[in-house]
């Protein structure tokens, strides 16, 4: 890499130091950059709202919809305009055989209608959102953690370690992500197993979290490795080495803080990607397992009801779209604040 393209990519610490004589902290500058951007503030605020709404799922289920969204309500009846109406309605099409779940009432009960098992979709949306966000967030952390370790180990040690690790990364990355995830899911889902000291029960959310977290490790580890190698060549590291500072101290004091910005830039993008991945895997029935809900499983429930009750599919799709959009918008601003060079192109 050219030294010229490299100089921009110093840590916020270095960048802020150049600009303000190192009086303001680096993270304060990033924070102020975010505050100053209406896009970042609005998207962060709306994301917060989504999180709070999903956290209030039990309250909604108990006091508003008044149903248990995890028990099938095939014979349940609700009052509409004072008349008791069954949740599963006799089909009016064709021979009149079979039942169709109730459509959106736009009232407190079954606001978005019921799914194939007569469960309140609106309440499941909130519970499902909780799981979708939890899985996406946790798998993002797992992915960043392992990617950082592998990327730094490969980039900093070089030589044989780098050779082995980066070839392994390349190989796993050549494996199509979804196929890898499907293969992992099919052997891990549906049975309990021990992971070290922990007993993981079948249908646990840990399984999709681990799978989604691990499949994107190469995607992040590769740029981290490149970043570490570039920093390693830069003058301030050479100076530190010249001063006789120990290798691990250089790693902790100088490499890690500089890599952390790259990791942070990846976080919202990765979380957005993970939300979509979770929904896709759950749609293929290898993600979140019933009776647990997630936006992906609701989409799967809605698949057979697509033409008769489109809202079962529409609602989770919109939820995913809005959440991912907000994460990407926030991530764009975050990247521009942390890495001013990327903002130049705009």
């Amino acid at each position: 890499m050219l030294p010229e393209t490299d100089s921009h990519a110093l840590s916020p610490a270095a960048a802020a130091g150049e600009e303000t004589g190192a009086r303001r902290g680096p993270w304060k500058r990033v924070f102020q950059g975010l505050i100053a951007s209406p896009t970042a503030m609005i998207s962060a605020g709306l994301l917060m709202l989504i999180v709070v709404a999903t956290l209030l799922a039990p309250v909604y289920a108990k006091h508003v919809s008044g149903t248990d969204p995890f028990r099938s309500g095939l014979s349940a009846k609700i009052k509409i305009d004072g008349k008791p109406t069954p949740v599963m309605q006799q089909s009016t099409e064709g021979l009149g055989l079979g039942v169709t779940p109730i459509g959106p009432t736009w009232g407190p009960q079954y606001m978005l209608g019921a799914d194939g098992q007569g469960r309140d979709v609106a309440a499941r949306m909130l519970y499902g959102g909780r799981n979708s966000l939890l899985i996406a967030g946790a798998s993002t952390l797992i992915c960043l953690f392992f990617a950082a370790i592998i990327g730094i180990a490969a980039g900093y040690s070089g030589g044989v370690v780098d050779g082995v690790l980066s070839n392994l990364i390349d190989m796993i990355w050549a494996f199509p992500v979804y196929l890898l995830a499907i293969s992992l899911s099919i052997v891990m889902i549906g049975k309990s197993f021990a992971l070290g000291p922990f007993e993981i029960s079948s249908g646990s959310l840990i399984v999709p979290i681990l799978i989604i977290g691990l499949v994107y490790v190469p995607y992040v580890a590769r740029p981290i490795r490149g970043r570490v190698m570039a920093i390693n060549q830069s003058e301030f590291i050479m100076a530190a080495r010249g001063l006789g500072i120990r290798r691990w101290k250089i790693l902790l004091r100088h490499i890690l803080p500089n890599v952390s910005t790259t990791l942070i830039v990846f976080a919202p993008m990765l979380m957005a990607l993970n939300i979509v991945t979770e929904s896709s895997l759950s749609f293929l029935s290898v993600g979140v397992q019933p009776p647990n809900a997630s936006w992906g499983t609701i989409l799967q429930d809605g698949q057979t009801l697509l033409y008769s009750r489109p809202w079962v599919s529409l609602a989770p799709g919109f939820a995913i779209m809005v959440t991912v959009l907000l994460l990407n918008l926030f991530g764009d601003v975050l990247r521009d604040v942390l890495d001013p060079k990327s903002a130049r192109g705009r």
Partner: protein
Amino acid sequence: MIAAILKRLLRMVVVMFGISVITFLIFFATPASDPAARIAGRNAAQETIEAVRKDFGLDRPLYVQYGLMMEKLFITRDLTSFANRGQQIVPTVMAAAPATLSLVSGAAILWMLGGILTGITAAAFRGRWPDKILMGISMMAVAMPVFWVGEMVNLVTQNRLHDTWAFSWVPALGYTPFSQDPGLWFRSMVFPWLTLAFLYIGLYGRMLRTGIIETYQEDFIRTARAKGLTGRKVLLKHATRSAIIPIVIMFGMDFGVLVGGAAVLTEVVFGINGVGRLTYQALKVLDLPMIMATVLYASFFVVVANAVVDLLCLLIDPRMRRA
């Protein structure tokens, strides 16, 4: 040049070997589960499990198991399914391949053309409303799961509007082979192609736009402007030409992602009987041999496709031959 080609081919073989080992280990060496029981399928009789154990050599060392599995998959090709008793797996996958190929190749053409068009238009109108609209749409495209887009398309084209003039030309969901009826093949593939390409048109459009705008800051663009070229010539002949190279390289990588991911979902939603739908159906009944076969064949296809793109780049760009 020949050395570079051989090196790339060797790399391809190594990656294929690596993928086959990873897949094998996932399916056969995951702790705390009996691969024989898993291969034999749900509620298999004890005799079946024992037969599977003997047939796949599961009581022998791992490398023998690996060898036997690869032999069944690629040499004798006589792996049979247990969920759909007696179904020959490799021929079934091969029969499904043309549908998947039609889907991904058509979508790939659309996505490259659409992406380039979007990127150039957005860059040309940078900061004005066509740019803002295009970038807004592409931001949305990236945010939507591809199977959901497919469902929404179906909702519009297959439901109430299906009998109106707008969408009456769209055939019912499913796949018609090209050899059987080219016209019907094309009409049934239009919306799957568009759905699959939608995400990438947005992604590539954004990337190309950024690339062109960054290229505008290079010296040779200033030179081109200084010698009096029109804005259009600078954009199309100079900036786009240099910004498009990374897009072509990325295309090779994303094509694999597409085959291995989005195509599976698109096939499921549009009822196209390709390799992806085969995988989906195998997942529903936990047909392990079928899943292993589709995963391996699809991954190998992706690896070969990537190698072909790299070899093409070698031919086009002399700088890469040195690497």
